């Protein structure tokens, strides 16, 4: 299944809850304020590096760009997708849990 997370990890616990519950091997998409979790050199970078090994982690490019985050600031192992890629993830990975 696909888990989608739109909350900043610095303000809300949505990503923590997602990582606690989501079975390993699933797909996670970070979008809206969730994209801040995908950046290098933050207090959650190590958590996301580990997550990128256990899950397929994606981040929405348009939301990164809107927030001034260059693609080279994205943690290695996290794949940048556009809205079409978001649609593909929904199609490929099945039911969607939205961690609002």
């Amino acid at each position, binding site marked *: 299944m696909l888990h989608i997370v739109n909350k900043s990890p610095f303000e809300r616990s949505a990503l923590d*809850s997602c990582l606690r519950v989501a079975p390993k091997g*699933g797909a996670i998409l970070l979008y809206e304020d969730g994209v801040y979790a995908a950046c290098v050199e933050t207090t959650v970078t190590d958590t996301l590096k580990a997550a990128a090994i256990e899950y397929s982690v994606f981040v929405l490019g348009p939301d990164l760009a809107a927030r001034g985050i260059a693609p080279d600031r994205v943690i290695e192992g996290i794949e940048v997708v556009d809205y079409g890629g978001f649609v593909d993830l929904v199609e490929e990975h099945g*039911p*969607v*849990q*939205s961690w609002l």
Partner: protein
Amino acid sequence: MNELEPDYDTEGVVKKFMFVNRKAPYGTIYALEILETVLISAAFDQDVSVVFMDDGVFQIKKGQDTKAINVKNFSPTYRALEGYDVEKLFVERESMEARGLAVDDFVVPVEVLSAEELGGLMDQQDVIITG
């Protein structure tokens, strides 16, 4: 109000629906309005599960008294779910324990699941609705 005629046939289709409650009551309206959705789902004869996790566990805490804040106490409505054949109510253990709650603190009987067990159950669903 226009009643739309469904343009697709859903007769006889039973899907696994999970409602995921992660928000506390009263501070925002999410808990109340998702509960209305759960009640409506019962009319469609689907396989419905309701999950309380994160601050959602506070929705079913006993002893709520909202008289002094001028809003309706909707916690008794959870007890009505059984009458609608919505009987699969789950609480995530980690969320419950983190908030100092135990299974006796809830207004309805629930099954307590670990995060891992809940993840497995979520993985089996067809439709997951969150609010």
